[in-house]
């Protein structure tokens, strides 16, 4: 990549600096905020110790944006928020203004330009998602398309604040789950062990690396037609796809056998209960582009049951912990099956080590 004609000397500056990106009212009250309110869905009001107030208008984006879209956002920021804007960790865009009178016009303009205002408080916010067929080298599905389909179907819940608590969604295009865990997560689940492309294998993969990547030692060196290659012990293989990341010849993806699984109860905040990992509640859902109706249907069921049954401040997992898993399956109409019984490293700790039982 070295370029002899290059004249610019790289400055290894790391992250961009932020001072100049903060609204003057933010700079003035930096670190001295007193409280906040949510005057309406999509709008936050933060009041500083100084008495200053700043209004935030939050809107959804497709995350896979374009320079055109970003320029539209910039236009809006220039018009209503003194040229400042930011993004949330959940791909929403936020405009901060001290001028209350700018809020309503800004909302109208955002909505008319296709950016739904919402995503605050006890709502379903935007989906944390990943690359999929658009860009990744190991995906079994697309991500942006799944997200678009899901958000279309629960659009109202983004714009309202009628959930018991925040609902975080995520979706990921392979089991690695770059989208992270969430209250409800949609993640690819492979069902068939990888088929090995023996022709490619030795050319494109370091064999020991692929062997080392397998968490259950299911990959063994072997010789086929006099050529060193690998084989998979299908009995042992747990279809995790880890080998595929290290070696593209371990073909785990399949149009039919790579399915979707739905997970619930992931919680990262420390509020009330300790953070908790999410649990598998549905799998074997087909990978059905462009709209994945089977997936959005399950999401809908879970949200409906939670919205109805959750008490204020209960996150999805906390709601389930209160009512119990048995009732969760009853109320969502999902089916518990024996694959949902943990069989991995700490499986023992998930057994019901008590006579506590629900009928």
């Amino acid at each position, binding site marked *: *990549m070295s370029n002899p004609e*290059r004249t*610019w000397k*790289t*400055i*290894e*500056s*790391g*992250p*961009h*600096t932020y001072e100049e*990106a903060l609204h003057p009212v933010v700079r003035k009250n*930096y*670190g001295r905020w*007193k409280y906040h*309110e949510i005057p309406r869905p999509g709008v936050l009001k*933060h009041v500083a110790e100084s008495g200053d107030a*700043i209004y935030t208008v939050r809107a*959804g984006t*497709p*995350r*896979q*944006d374009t*320079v*055109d879209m970003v320029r539209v956002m910039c236009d809006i920021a220039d018009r209503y928020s003194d*040229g*400042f*804007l*930011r*993004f949330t*960790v959940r791909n929403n865009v936020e405009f*901060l203004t001290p001028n209350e009178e700018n809020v309503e016009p800004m909302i109208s303009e955002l909505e008319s330009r296709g950016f*739904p205002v919402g995503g605050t408080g006890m709502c379903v916010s935007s989906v944390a998602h*990943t690359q999929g*067929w658009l*860009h990744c*080298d190991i995906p*079994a599905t*697309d991500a942006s398309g799944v997200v*678009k389909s899901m958000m*279309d179907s629960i*659009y109202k819940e983004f714009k309202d604040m009628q959930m018991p608590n925040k609902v975080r969604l995520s979706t990921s295009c392979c089991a690695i*789950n770059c989208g992270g*865990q969430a209250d409800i997560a949609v993640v690819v689940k492979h069902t068939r062990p990888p088929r090995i492309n023996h022709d490619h294998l030795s050319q494109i993969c370091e064999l020991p690396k692929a062997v*080392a990547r397998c968490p259950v030692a299911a990959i063994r060196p072997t010789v086929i037609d006099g050529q060193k290659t690998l084989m998979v012990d299908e009995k042992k293989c747990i279809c*995790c796809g*880890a080998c595929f990341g290290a070696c*593209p010849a371990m073909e785990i*993806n399949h*149009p039919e056998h790579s399915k979707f699984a739905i997970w619930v109860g*992931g919680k*990262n*905040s*420390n509020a*009330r209960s300790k*953070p908790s990992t999410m649990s598998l509640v549905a799998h074997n859902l087909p990978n059905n582009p*462009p709209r994945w109706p089977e997936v959005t249907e399950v999401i809908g069921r879970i949200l409906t049951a939670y919205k109805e049954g959750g*008490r*204020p401040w209960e996150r999805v997992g906390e709601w389930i912990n209160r009512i119990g898993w048995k009732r969760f399956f009853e109320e969502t109409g999902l089916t518990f099956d024996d694959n949902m019984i943990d069989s991995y*490293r700490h499986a023992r700790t998930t057994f019901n080590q008590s006579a506590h039982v629900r009928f």
Partner: protein
Amino acid sequence: MQEANGGTPGKACQCDGCGPEERDGFLNPTPVLDELESGPWPSFVTGFKKLAERTEKPMLRGVLDQLEYSYNTKMGYWKGGLVTVDSYGAGIITRYSMIKDKFPEAAEFHTMRIQPAPGLHYNTAMLRELCDIWEEYGSGIITLHGQTGDIMLQGIEQEKVQECFDELNKKGWDLGGAGAGMRTGVSCIGPGRCENACYDNLKLHLNALKHFVGEVHRPEWNYKLKFKFSGCPNDCTNAIMRSDLAVIGTWKDAIQVDQDEVRAWVDEKGVEALVNNVINHCPTKAITLKDGGIDISTRDCVRCMHCINAMPKALSPGKERGISLLMGGKNTLKVGVNLGSLIVPFMKMESDEDIEAFLELIEEIIDWWDDNGLDHERIGETIERVGLKQFLEGVGLEADINMISRPRDNPYFKATY
């Protein structure tokens, strides 16, 4: 792999089936993707198509064609490679089409990961500059933001990468991480707007990532290492699960209570709400109902944030503020999702010396990991394999009961004798 059934690349569709509704523009038909244009949520397909029609960049047409093909065949067609800029070893995610015979316009589609400002703050001047440079050298697709916190400029050809980078770098932008090195960090908005921020996470983020900037650009550890900086235990960056080094604001002394505001809250919402929505949700029953208001036993409080969240006007974190460091968060690969665990219960984070002490500790930790970790083993996995006790000894930290949820239930250790 299945047979192609996408349009002919490079020109409008000429098949028989398309019929008259076919749009007469730059792009080939993408009937399946087009189904993602309806519905109220903003459509990335519409965005891409508009961009393509306006700029007429062949790469955009090729990528849409290949994506349409993926939607039809339910398979992905990108493969990796290695592209970098001068003296860097990471920051570009390289993508070559596996089916470039079919879609030659999609032959290359690399992503440049760019580190935004902590807290994801922008002014429009910065952002417009970024867009202009990106439109000049790349496809014009921008992801705001990647899950690790990068601006992802998606779609550039190898030959334009260096020049594009130089232009960006001149404007204060630098590449983010990839591979087995330090990754881009994430911060919540923190003191930039939030009354809960217990330390200046934006500042620490900036300092830490500048400190490790070499390790961002030239990865040479066992595996990746991610920082996330949340201003308080609400953990709005998902640090506990998504980062090896989760820096979470907290406090040591009593929660600050404004009793007038408590009364106002109760007057408005009632005692029942106080009991059901605040008191009963405290994980350690640290709050008691007292004279129609509340009394918080500081000794029992575990700094979960709930009561403060529920009564933001009346309650705020204590005054003796700082951070907790949790370590080992990561997702599913190999071990199943791993939440980080508490390693440093409390550390002040006010002065530059505090920041320095923190960075020294992190250096120490990374040294230990360098010595003890295996290839492709995240630091949380190393700690688990080697033992938390051994890790603490290795980095010179004292054991604290806060690090565990309970003492061991088995006698299987060797004490000194």
